[in-house]
């Protein structure tokens, strides 16, 4: 177990810069999820921590020791790959024990560790099988087993669940979380799936275009997104955004169609400044005969609830409600945007306090 410190890390591929200076401090035993759209540099950052990519500039420390120039094998970390990367010519037991055999551990020790890892992951009956005779979920488990037999300083996960079907992904997500609770190992987990990020993380690092956008607890990012990118990326269905201006006199948001939405409190913003108003679909209050008129465009029942696509404030508005009996397409309903649920962003996209 160890802390991991990333300081001013940059990565260039030739003349193309992929990471523009990333700082990150991960505490001992913490589960940190790097999340962002593909190409944001999250996998590159993970691979640099693992030692699989060279560091262009900056410093990485694992357990307080600078590892910039250490080979992957000397960093004492374990990694689970998206493709699982199981050794096809070795049995499940062989795959799991490879790292211990490289370290010339005693035979009894290896057997014991493999057996206990197999028991944890439910692989006891598959130890003599080869990877090609396993299902996707089983391969995934072997890849995890290969990591946990070693008790390394940190676990790195590179989109480990992306190749599984939705149902299995949910199961494995739970298992990873349970595993972390029992092992308490420092873990860095890369994913583009914000649900995985929300459910697994102690802290989420939201990344975009080679920069860290926000670091915080899942609910932090959900409740107080630092900028438009985080606001739009975290949450599904995504947050509604409206362009307009800020009116300081009565602290209201004025939409392009001149509808005024009271904001409930004063914001640190100049009068008449262009701003973006955000509200999550689940916070939009539909019906009740009050508020702005909103024609219904589309109704998507999910079983769990209903997603309504409406027109309001001169733009599209999505509302999520747990009720089933809602509006019909073509009807006009009413929406209210509760002031305490609103997010305001300035022209650069940053959150306004």
């Amino acid at each position: 177990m160890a802390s991991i410190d990333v300081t001013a890390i940059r990565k260039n591929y030739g003349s193309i810069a992929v990471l523009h200076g990333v700082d990150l401090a991960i505490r001992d035993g913490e589960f940190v999820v790097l999340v962002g759209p593909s190409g944001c540099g999250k996998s590159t950052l993970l691979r640099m921590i693992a030692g699989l990519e060279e560091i262009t500039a900056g410093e990485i420390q694992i357990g307080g020791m600078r590892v910039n120039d250490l080979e992957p094998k000397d960093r004492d970390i374990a990694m689970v790959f998206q493709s699982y990367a199981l050794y096809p010519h070795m049995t499940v037991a062989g795959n799991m024990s490879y790292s211990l055999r490289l370290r010339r551990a005693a035979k009894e020790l290896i057997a014991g560790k493999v057996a206990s890892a197999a028991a944890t992951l439910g692989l006891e009956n598959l130890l003599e099988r080869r990877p090609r005779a396993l299902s996707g979920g089983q391969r995934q488990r072997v890849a995890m087993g290969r990591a946990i037999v070693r008790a390394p300083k940190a676990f790195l996960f590179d989109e480990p669940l992306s190749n599984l079907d939705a149902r299995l992904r949910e199961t494995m997500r739970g298992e990873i979380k349970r595993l972390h609770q029992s092992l308490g190992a420092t873990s860095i987990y890369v994913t583009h799936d914000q649900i995985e990020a929300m459910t697994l993380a102690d802290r989420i690092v939201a990344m975009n275009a080679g920069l860290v956008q926000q670091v915080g607890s899942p609910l932090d990012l959900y409740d107080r997104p630092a900028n438009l990118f985080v606001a739009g990326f975290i949450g599904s269905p995504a947050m509604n955004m409206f362009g307009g201006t800020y009116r300081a006199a009565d602290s209201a948001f004025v939409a392009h169609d001149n509808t005024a939405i009271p904001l409930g409190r004063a914001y640190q913003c100049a009068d008449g400044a262009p701003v973006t108003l955000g509200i999550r679909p689940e916070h939009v209050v539909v019906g009740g005969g009050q508020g702005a008129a909103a024609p219904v465009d589309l109704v998507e029942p999910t079983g769990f609830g209903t997603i309504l696509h409406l027109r309001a404030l001169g733009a599209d508005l999505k509302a999520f409600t747990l009720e089933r009996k809602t509006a019909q397409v073509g009807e006009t309903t009413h929406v209210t945007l509760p002031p305490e649920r609103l997010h305001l962003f300035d022209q650069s996209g940053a959150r306004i306090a």
Partner: protein
Amino acid sequence: MRERLLGTIAHRLAILVYMAFALFPLFWLLKVSVTPPDLLYSEGVPMWPSRATLDNFSFVLQHTDFPKYFRNSVIVSGSTAIIVTLLASLAGYALSRFQFRGKPWIIVLMLLTQMFPLVMLVAPIFKMLSPLGLTNSLTGLVVVYVAFNVPFATFLMQSFFDGIPKDLEEAAMIDGATRFRAFRQIILPLTLPGIAATLGFVFTAAWSELLFALMLISGAASSTFPVGLLSFVSKFAVDFGQMMAAGVLALIPACLFFLLIQRYLVQGLTAGAVKG
């Protein structure tokens, strides 16, 4: 249904015709080798002689230099195949995995060596090898064969390495292996089909090479068997029976070799490595 049956028959028939065409020379080789000399010209051209004999074989083995040629060929082809495969796996791995300065130039240079007809190069190579004392020696022949086979073998091996996901050696390196150990313990075992193919390809190429063997070697002591076959052609006659018997014997190592490696040639070892 009927049409499908007809299609299948036509398909099989076409394969059969092709097989017959490809294998007939081999059959003829065998047929002539067991034909007694006195029947060779007197019986016309039957598919099988009225009396078969192994005299040609025993004569070739006991009274000619053929066993020596054969041994030389085994030495030359075997060493060439092993050295080329060793070099080509390392070079192919580098081309497949690493970006380094001058890589495109090396690839172009390697292609360039494959562009010239060998006949053009015989004289300069002779000129180079002779002061080094490498003419008339099996070592010299191995050096030349290695040089001419490495480029193609390297590209062949590279394509096999390209087919193995990079994740595998990265996983091994994180597990605690050096890159070389990951190459040896994880990547090489998965490339066995490729290694077998390369070995087989280089071995047969060296086994049947005539031009350099003929030009660089004078004297029976270090002749290889393709050169040796020519010794059955004298000024006034060709001893077809003995020549064909020698030919049949020369086929044996190639057949044995492919028998040994064929299980790797058909095996898809990488199945199950990554998602699938």
